[in-house]
């Protein structure tokens, strides 16, 4: 983050920021090298391209469909996203580990009566792991993994501000809403910190009112009140500061960062939608027995 940005250029100021804190939703993105094409695609094209498939995947019960979409998402990300260490960790470790975990969890959790007819794979004491159980688990794990991976296609390659700008510029979302949402992003770490202080304060004063879930809920409510009070005050202050800087002066505002919707964005969107449709058509996962 040291190299100088192009002087006064209208392009987003700021070089690649690979070492930005991971939770920074504002981290600037560099003008992407050619091979990381996903970063250069309009955020709405990316989002529009994956959302239909994500929604449909919720209703899928087979193994092949989610696997196909998982492969599609990975193909896009591995060829088109900037592969930082964090990205690679998510893609190659976190997502597979999550899928595996859900698979095993559901395999254990599923009602054995439903899968009693399938061949047993293993036995621990009186409990038998049926192939069907593993199948149900894998279907669930892969389904969640595929939905997540499709989300990452957009999530890993889009910054919050760009998404807001695209929303304002193409969808004509009023900028007041978009930028307010952006300002609200900043509350999150602050709230987290504040909550930890409040909990420490309450802990040190001691609890009474007993143990058990209800007492816990009552105590949880006890931390919410101070958090809300300070949250509302903070929000009011932010709102005043924004008003004082002419926020909402006109129905539109100058946009220095244009996020155009070009022909290639339309092409990307269309390609993604057609591919999704083709995959669903090929596997047609509905109407099949579980």
């Amino acid at each position, binding site marked *: *983050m040291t190299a100088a*940005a192009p002087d*006064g250029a*209208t392009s987003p*100021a*700021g*070089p690649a920021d690979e070492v*930005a804190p991971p939770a*920074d*939703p*504002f*981290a*600037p993105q560099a003008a992407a090298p050619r091979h990381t094409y996903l970063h250069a695609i309009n955020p709405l094209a990316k989002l529009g391209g994956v959302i239909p498939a994500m929604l449909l995947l919720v209703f899928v019960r087979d193994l092949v469909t989610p696997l196909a979409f998982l492969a599609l998402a990975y193909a896009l990300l591995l060829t088109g996203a900037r592969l930082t260490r964090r990205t690679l960790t998510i893609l190659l470790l976190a997502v597979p580990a999550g899928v595996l975990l859900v698979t095993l969890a559901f395999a254990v959790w599923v009602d054995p009566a439903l899968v009693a007819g399938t061949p047993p794979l293993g036995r621990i004491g009186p409990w038998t792991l049926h192939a069907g159980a593993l199948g149900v688990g894998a279907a669930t794990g892969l389904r969640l993994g595929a939905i997540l991976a499709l989300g990452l296609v957009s999530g890993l390659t889009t*910054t*919050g*501000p760009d998404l807001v700008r695209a929303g304002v510029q193409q969808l004509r979302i009023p900028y007041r809403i978009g*930028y307010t949402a*952006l*300002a609200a992003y*900043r509350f999150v770490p*602050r709230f987290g910190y*504040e909550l930890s*202080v*409040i*909990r*420490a*304060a*309450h*802990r*040190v*004063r*001691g*609890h*009474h009112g007993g143990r058990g879930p209800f007492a816990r809920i009552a105590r949880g409510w*006890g931390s919410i*009140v*101070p958090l809300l*009070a*300070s949250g509302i005050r*903070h929000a009011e*202050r*932010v*709102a*005043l*500061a*924004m*008003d*004082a*800087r*002419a*926020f*909402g*002066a*006109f129905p*539109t*505002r*100058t*946009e*220095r960062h244009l996020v155009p919707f070009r022909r290639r964005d339309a092409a990307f969107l269309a390609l993604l939608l057609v591919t999704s449709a083709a995959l669903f058509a090929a596997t047609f996962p509905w109407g099949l027995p579980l």
Partner: protein
Amino acid sequence: MPEPAPLIRVRELSLTHAGASDPAPRGVSADLRPGEVVLLLGPSGSGKSTLTLALNGLIPHSVDAAVEGSVEVAGRDTSEATVAALSTTVSMVFQDPDAQLVTGTVLDEVAFAPENLRLPAPEVLARAEAALRRTGLWERRADNPDLLSGGGRQRLAIACALATASPAMVLDEPTANLDPAGADDVFDALAEIAADPGRTLVLVEHDLDRAVRIATRVLVLDRTGALAFDGTPEEILRDRAEDLIAMGVWLPRSTLVARRLRERGIAVDPLPLTPEELGAALAAHAAAGGGAPSTALSPGDGTAPPADAAPPAGVAPPADATAAPGAPEPIIRARGLWVSRGVSRRPSRRPSRSAARGGTPILRDVDLDIAAGSLTAIVGPNGAGKTTLAQALAGVVPPPRRTVTVAGLDPATASPRELTGKVGFVFQNPEHQFVAATVFDELAHGLRLRRVPDAEIRERVGEMLARFGLGHKATVHPFLLSGGEKRRLSVGTVLIARPDVVVLDEPTFGQDHARAQELLALLHDLRRGGTTVILVTHDMHLVAEHATHVVVLEEGRIRTSGPTAEILSGPQVSLPPALRAVPDHLRPLLAEERT
């Protein structure tokens, strides 16, 4: 010479917040002209901040308040123009730098206002660059504002105000959240802006030392919100000093130091406003053969009573906080204390190793003894670990086991019931520690926890309510109290358990002079009653005047610790200018030893 036309014209202005019964400010009139740097003073509740909100139309447009009288900005009545339109004439800088950030980079942040004004992009960039260069942030333009220091973020807020190209800038306590280095940083930027003859600055500040250097005019609101004084800093701060003190308003530190020295028999005349004036007055005094009290003092000896202000017997600080041989057993002892970020929430269920393992250490290998009956101040720059140390000693952040003893207890393993009987912690923000729905229950909480009989609870709570002047608020929700009442209640909730040690995190932060003095008097009372008091503070004047012992932290380690006089005359602490102007041998005279 004709005066320039006023930029802001306030006429008979009374503002009543929704829900408040009385207006504050009340009937204020003033003309603010280009070239003026106006310092707006007043005790808590006098309506300073409210008045600032009216200067750019946030009242009445964004904040609900009843308005009588008028405010005109560049000839336009603020009630008829929009805030956005007024923003090109009057810009604002608020107290909390974090509550003013919207975007993701320094450059976008400065561009925010001009973009809202629909200026063409090249003009937006030109303005942003000029504002950032002026505040020394141009090199940081690509950074996330979160990466700037507190002072840097506040300079960014000033740059954002500059980018509106408004001739008037209103700043509401811009350095209140900053440490001394950050405050210097902000005032360096402001001094340059203030030098512009076409510009009007309105500044609300508690810390007058820096502000008085740039101010050309002082307005003072009294407790009722009426305009009490209006004049040059000389006229008001020097000649009206006693009136301002009586109103509860802070004075420049040099002035307060000089007043204290006068009380102790050192003739400091005239009353200085700056450290330079204080230094000169003291030099003149010494040259005139004055300084009779100083002959009774050997330099660096904090325990010798000044000849003309003998402290009562028995309150002289113990010889050494750091356990000199023969000293009484310390009430708090820490050995090899390490605390890292993200330690376990539940001290009793996790092994102590978790505190020393992983994460960034906040405290590194701290060894510390605190003498029973002392008033010990923990000082150090932002991020040194002051609050963490105080919290670890009080068991708020669980220290590793067997590293800390407080009055015979290990805070790592003691239950809250045991712990609150020995040590109480007052958080910087009183609201954080409120757990009950009424003031009475808030005070009774600690007693119910240890199953004190109801009759006794009523009696002790009643006593505490009376002591803190909260008797008429017993059934009110703690969140509905005023700022000062909340602070008193938070201290009361800790004192009701009669702990041996009370720990306070920045107890005077953001309070007016009268309230800060009130709280400090209470701490002295406690100490006289045998309670050990520990406080975290940035305020070296408070340390010089009130603490018996000082612990200086730096990067999580103890730089030095010992009796106040010894530490303040040593090389390890950097004193604020007004204290530096006082020679070592006179400094013990500043100590408050109430009779």
